[in-house]
Every structure is written in structure tokens, then in C-alpha cells.
């Protein structure tokens, strides 16, 4: 049961990053590459139509995490208190940027909300990457100092940063050079994803140029990926053991690699949805590989006194999990149905859509 819930939540989170990820990416591209008002408008629309139904995946993942792994939820949410609240504020800025930009036809008004949408998308991508970096790196569970836990074994609190900015310090903060690298990887990945989405959904005048942008970002991403795998070995020398012990887990990194190398051929790809599929693989592969490298741990402990949090020592009782299994099946089926209906009815390029609004 724990395994089922772990997989389901990981799946919902991955879908969130694929769906809302293109909104973040769209925001990043919007910030740097959209110059003409017409492009800005249609690109904002490419995110604006769907951000709300995409964000529900985050809410759903949160709810399920709360139900299935309450100890993990409590530990991580209170431990990463400040970055999480900042993420909440960014989510608000992103949303109002999107919703309010076209409410008034005034240059100053639209440019403020464009910036709000773009900058908060960029920072959100960065923060989500940093969060993933923190999970992979692990935290000082129980806030151990001089060999003694200051808190219960599964609680901790991280400052935003520690003056050394090093993941190897005794009390690493949320932001250090390792998590920052993962954050940048997330920004680049989501920018690529946003670009493939814009190509898929709009006929913006920058679409041609975006192919080059995607290509260049892919090169950057390859370099960053190699680099991060090397430094990951320094931060956590056991990070690849899981793939040796359970060779079938290799499929996840493979997904990532297919996405990554596929995108190198972006200039040759004719169909816009192929580009989007490749960047989707990139995201799903990246997230699942990180989780697979830890499994069954979900938050490693960086000290030797308190044990890491796993899906087994943070889950609720079996009765609750099994009951929820039943309704979750029904729920998933319903959600898939809504999703298909929605995408069917709102398909095609945004510029051409006649939605009478």
C-alpha cells in the first residue's frame, strides 16, 4: 500500500511538473524572448488558459501526501518553512499576473503584470529545482548539534542559506551551490518545455527562433547534467547504488536521456507535438530518476544519529491507506475523463480559437 501511494503521488507530482511546468517555462520564455505585444498576449494566453486546472495537480499531490505520509508532510513542510511560504507568494504573483494582464489595455498595467508573470515563473522553476536538490542531498534530521538531537528525530529546520553555501557543511541551508545547480537545471529544463509548448499552441512570430533557443538550451542542459552527476557523487557518494542494485530502475534515467538527446535534433523535427513529447520525457525522467535513486528513502538524513525518512516510517496505518486506495481509483478515472474532454474541446492553436471572451 505504501508503495502504491508513493507511486501515485510521484505520478501526480510529475504530471504537475509537466503541466504547470509548461506554464513556468512559458513565463521564462515570455520574459526573455517575447518582444512584440501580439506575441506577449498570445504567449500569456497559452499559459493563462490552463494554469488553474494545472495547479490542481499540486493541490491534489499535497492532499494525498498529507493523507498517506503525514509524518513526512509535517516534517518537510515545517522544515522548509520559509522557502515554501515564498513559493506560495510566487504562485500568487504568477496567477494574478496571468489573470490581470489583459483586463486593462494600458501599457504600464500590462507590462507590470507581464513582469510579475515572467519573474515569478522563473523563480518558481528555480525554487522547485532547489527543493528537489534538497531532497536528494538530505537534511540534518532532528537538528543534530554536537551529537545531540535538538528536536524529535523526524523534525528539522533549514535556514534559507548557511554562510558557507556548501552542501557539505554541518548545517547546510536550503540554498547551497549543489541545490542551486539543480535549480538552474530546472529553469533550463522548464524553459525548453515552455518553448516546445509555445510552438505547439501558438503561431507567435518568434516560433522559428525558438527552435534555435531550444537547441542552445539543450546543449547547456547536457553540460549541466554531466556536471551535476559528478558533484552529486561528492555530495552523496551512494547516490547511484540503487541503480546497481535494482537495474530495472535504469528506465527512468533512460527516459531523461531520450528526451535530452532527442531535443538535439529539434531543428529537424517537423511536428510540433514531437518536441513537446521530448521535453515531457525530460521532466518525467528527471523527477523519477531522482526519486528512484533514493527509494525507499524520501528524505535522507545527513547525520548518523537519526535515520532517514522512508515511505515506510512516515506512512499512516494500513486501513486508511487501503480505504483511500478504493476512492483514489475512482478519482483517477474521473480525472482522466475530465482531462480528455477538456483537451478535446480546447485543442488547436490559441490564436485561432474562437472562445468568445
Amino acid at each position: 500500500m505504501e508503495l502504491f501511494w508513493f507511486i501515485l503521488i510521484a505520478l501526480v507530482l510529475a504530471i504537475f511538473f509537466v503541466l504547470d511546468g509548461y506554464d513556468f517555462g512559458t513565463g521564462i520564455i515570455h520574459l526573455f524572448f517575447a518582444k512584440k505585444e501580439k506575441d506577449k498576449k498570445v504567449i500569456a494566453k497559452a499559459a493563462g488558459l490552463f494554469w488553474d486546472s494545472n495547479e490542481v495537480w499540486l493541490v491534489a499531490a499535497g492532499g494525498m501526501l498529507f493523507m498517506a505520509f503525514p509524518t513526512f508532510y509535517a516534517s518537510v513542510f515545517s522544515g522548509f518553512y520559509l522557502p515554501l511560504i515564498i513559493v506560495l507568494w510566487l504562485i500568487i504573483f504568477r496567477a494574478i499576473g496571468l489573470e490581470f494582464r489583459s483586463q486593462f489595455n494600458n501599457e504600464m498595467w500590462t507590462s507590470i503584470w507581464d513582469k510579475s508573470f515572467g519573474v515569478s515563473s522563473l523563480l518558481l522553476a528555480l525554487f522547485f529545482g532547489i527543493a528537489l536538490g534538497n531532497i536528494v542531498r538530505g537534511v540534518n534530521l532532528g537538528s543534530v548539534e554536537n551529537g545531540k538531537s535538538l528536536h524529535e528525530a523526524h523534525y528539522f529546520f533549514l535556514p534559507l542559506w548557511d554562510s558557507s553555501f556548501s552542501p557539505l557543511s554541518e548545517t547546510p541551508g536550503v540554498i547551497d551551490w549543489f541545490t542551486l545547480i539543480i535549480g538552474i537545471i530546472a529553469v533550463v529544463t522548464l524553459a525548453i518545455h515552455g518553448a516546445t509548448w509555445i510552438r505547439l499552441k501558438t503561431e507567435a512570430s518568434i516560433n522559428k527562433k525558438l527552435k534555435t533557443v531550444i537547441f542552445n538550451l539543450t546543449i547547456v542542459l547536457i553540460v549541466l547534467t554531466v556536471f551535476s552527476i559528478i558533484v552529486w557523487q561528492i555530495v552523496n557518494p551512494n547516490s547511484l547504488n540503487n541503480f546497481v542494485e535494482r537495474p530495472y530502475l535504469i528506465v527512468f534515467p533512460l527516459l531523461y536521456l531520450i528526451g535530452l538527446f532527442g531535443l538535439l535534433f529539434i531543428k529537424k523535427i517537423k511536428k510540433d507535438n514531437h518536441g513537446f513529447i521530448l521535453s515531457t520525457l525530460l521532466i518525467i525522467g528527471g523527477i523519477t530518476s531522482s526519486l528512484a535513486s533514493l527509494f525507499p528513502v524520501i528524505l535522507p538524513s545527513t547525520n548518523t544519529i537519526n535515520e532517514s525518512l522512508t515511505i515506510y516510517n512516515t506512512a499512516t496505518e494500513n486501513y486508511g491507506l487501503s480505504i483511500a486506495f478504493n476512492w483514489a481509483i475512482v478519482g483517477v478515472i474521473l480525472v482522466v475523463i475530465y482531462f480528455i474532454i477538456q483537451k478535446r474541446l480546447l485543442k488547436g492553436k490559441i490564436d485561432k480559437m474562437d472562445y468568445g471572451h
Partner: protein
Amino acid sequence: MIFYDRLQFAFTITFHYIFPQLTMGLSLIIVFFKWKFLKTKIQKYNDAALFFMKIFAINFTMGVVTGIPMEFQFGTNWAKFSELTGGIIGQTLAMEGMFSFFLESSFLALFIFGEKLMGQKLHFLTGFLVFLGSWASGWFILATNAWMQHPVGYEILDNGKFVLENFSELFTNPWLLPAFLHNQFASVVTSAFVVASIGAFYILRNKYSEHGKLFLKTGVIFGLVSSLLVAFPTGDWNAKNVAKFQPASFAAMEGIFETEHAGAEIVLIGQPNMVEKKLDNKIAVPNILSFLTYQDWSRQIPGMDQFKKEELPDNIPALYYSYHIMVGLGTIFIGVMFLAAFQLWKRKLHTVKPLLWTIMFLVPFPYIANLTGWYVAELGRQPYLVYGLLKTSEGVSPTVSSGNTLFTLLGFVALYMLLGLLFLILVGKTIHQGPKPLKH
């Protein structure tokens, strides 16, 4: 210090609940307009549905962005509470995401963008599904809250964790149905006032007055029916539940300091004096409270003197005033809506200016009644998070310092001020533009 955590939760939920109370009620009225249009094919009804859809959409966005912090805060500020009870209230919260938020948000996008793509019948259906989603959301959140007010179906393990023992009891909780119905009708009151007052505004300004009359009429009818239902049977039913399951809160909210020998009086006016433990300037009617609560004129009702100090809510004046404000406003709403309905029946309402002005200026008050109602529920639950079982002070995050909470609280205050301002500007603009048939 736990004080800031409580203040932050209270502030953010108060702000959040400004929006869902309108979306829940308004979705019902939009569905009504759309249904009338399907039946009569009179364009006016469709205009009304589309106009209120715009207001709904702005409101919905605000509900979503302020709702996400609510869910996160369980983990960030109330970690111990989440750890101990997540196995139970996590069920209802996760179901809310699965069964209502997905439904609501998927079909809202279609309702807003899809009229041309889908045709009228399907458009009505998507509107109906949005309504269903938002009411389901209310149902699940109230199931969560009902469990905190009156815990059922649980088992406490040796390590202090609450785990689920009986799933269906979460939804057959005797606290749930009355609270849900009362809350939903109260949200219809809010939206009825909003609809009626926009109508009154258009009539008084003599602009869009044809639409104005329709809004006014619809608002008044919905308003009268829902105001009545809020008071009776649902308000009464809730009060009986509080008397039964939370007697200490009941004594505090009714302002009964001393137990009387026989029937308890009902307090209409009076200020709690916490030093002398009595009500100043009291006006009360003997025996009525006993009758209302137990249909027995002489039934004894325990006063606050019967409870230990640690069992009583920690802010009795706020609780008492909140309750009396809610009930007082409820009575006023019934009165005003009754007068308006009478004039409507005589077909004169749109000419009775003082009544139109009254309706227009009453708009903030249903919001106040709804929020004070929630203060009654939440302050009355104190000093417990889970009534009788888990103290509020035991639920807070062990590692988050009060400096950090104060910082985030100030951040939320600043951000929400900005949000509130933008919200008012946009709603104002929408009302100003008025309902126009879309040109397509």
C-alpha cells in the same frame, strides 16, 4: 509563540473565505439563469449568466490562490497537528482535491471559453458541473472541520497518533450535515445579496435597468428563501449540536455565566464582563433558551461556572459577540428580504428607492455574518484543535520560530492587501461595463 500561528491562520482563512462563499452561492444562481435561458430562450437570462460568470471567474481565481496557502499551512505551521491527525483529515482533504477541485477547475475553463464550441445544452451542463464541484468542495472541507469539532471513527495509538478506524463515520458525523447545509445556505445568502444589489445599483443609476430588474428579482427570491433556511431549521439545528457536543462553548457563546435553577433565559443584548463574570446592561427573556434548545421551558442549561477554566474557550467576549452579530444580522436579512419580496409581489419594488438603497448597502453584511459564524465555530472549539482530545498548543510546528511566523504573517498581510485592492478594481470594472450581449 503560538499566538502568531493562530493569527496567521485566522487572517489567511478569513481572507480565503471571502471568495468561496460567493463562488458556491453564485454558481447556483448562474446555473439557474442558464436553465431559464434554455427553457425560455429569452436572451436576458443568458446575458445574466455570462455577466455573473465574469464576476465568478475573478472571484474563483482569488479563491484558488488564497486556498493553496491554507492547505500548505497545515504542514508549515501546524506540523504536529498534521503528523498526528493526517491519517484522518488527510482523507477528506485529499478527496476534496480529487473529487471537487479537479471537477470545478476543468469545467470552469470550458464554461468560460466553450459556449461557442459546445452549444447551449453542453454549456449548461458544464456550468452545472462547476456548481457541483464547488459544493462538493464545501462538503469535504466541512467534513474535515466537523471531525475537528466532533471527532468520530478514530483510534489513538500509543505514540499519540490518530488513525482511521471507520471511514464512513467521517461522513455520517452528526456534526456534518447541519453544518454543511447551514454553511451552504449562508453562502447563497451572500450571493443573493450580491446579485440583488448589483440589480438595485443598475436601477438606481437608470442604466441596464432591464437586466437590473431581473437581477433584483432573482436576488430577492433567492435571498428570502436562503435567509429563512439559514435561521430555521439549519441554524437552530447547529445550536442544538453545540449544546449537546460542546456544552462549554454553548454557555460561552450564549453568555450564560451562571447556571440557573430551572429554564435558561435568552440574552438579546449585553456585554460580557470577564472580571465580574456577568453581563453588563443585559436584556434577556426568561426560559426561551431552554425551550429553543430542548423544547422544554424549564430544562437546566449548564453555565460557564460549571466548567473548569482550562475547558472554556480562551476568548469568551469575541465568541459571544461573534455569535450575537451573526444571529442579529440573520434576523435583519430576513426582515429586509421579506419587505423586498412583498414589494416585488406588488410589482413595485423597482420604484421603492429607500429599499433599493438598503439592499445595495447591505452587501458587506452577509460576508460579516459568514465570517463571524466561522469565528463562533473556531473560537468555540478552543482550547482544542480536535475537540476534547488535542490542545491547540500541542499542534503547532516544533521547529518554526515565532520570528519566522511573524515575518510570513506580515508578508501575507501585505500581499493580501494588494490582492484585495486588485479584486475590488476588477469587480468594479466588470460591474461598470455591465451585462452586454456578446457580439459573436
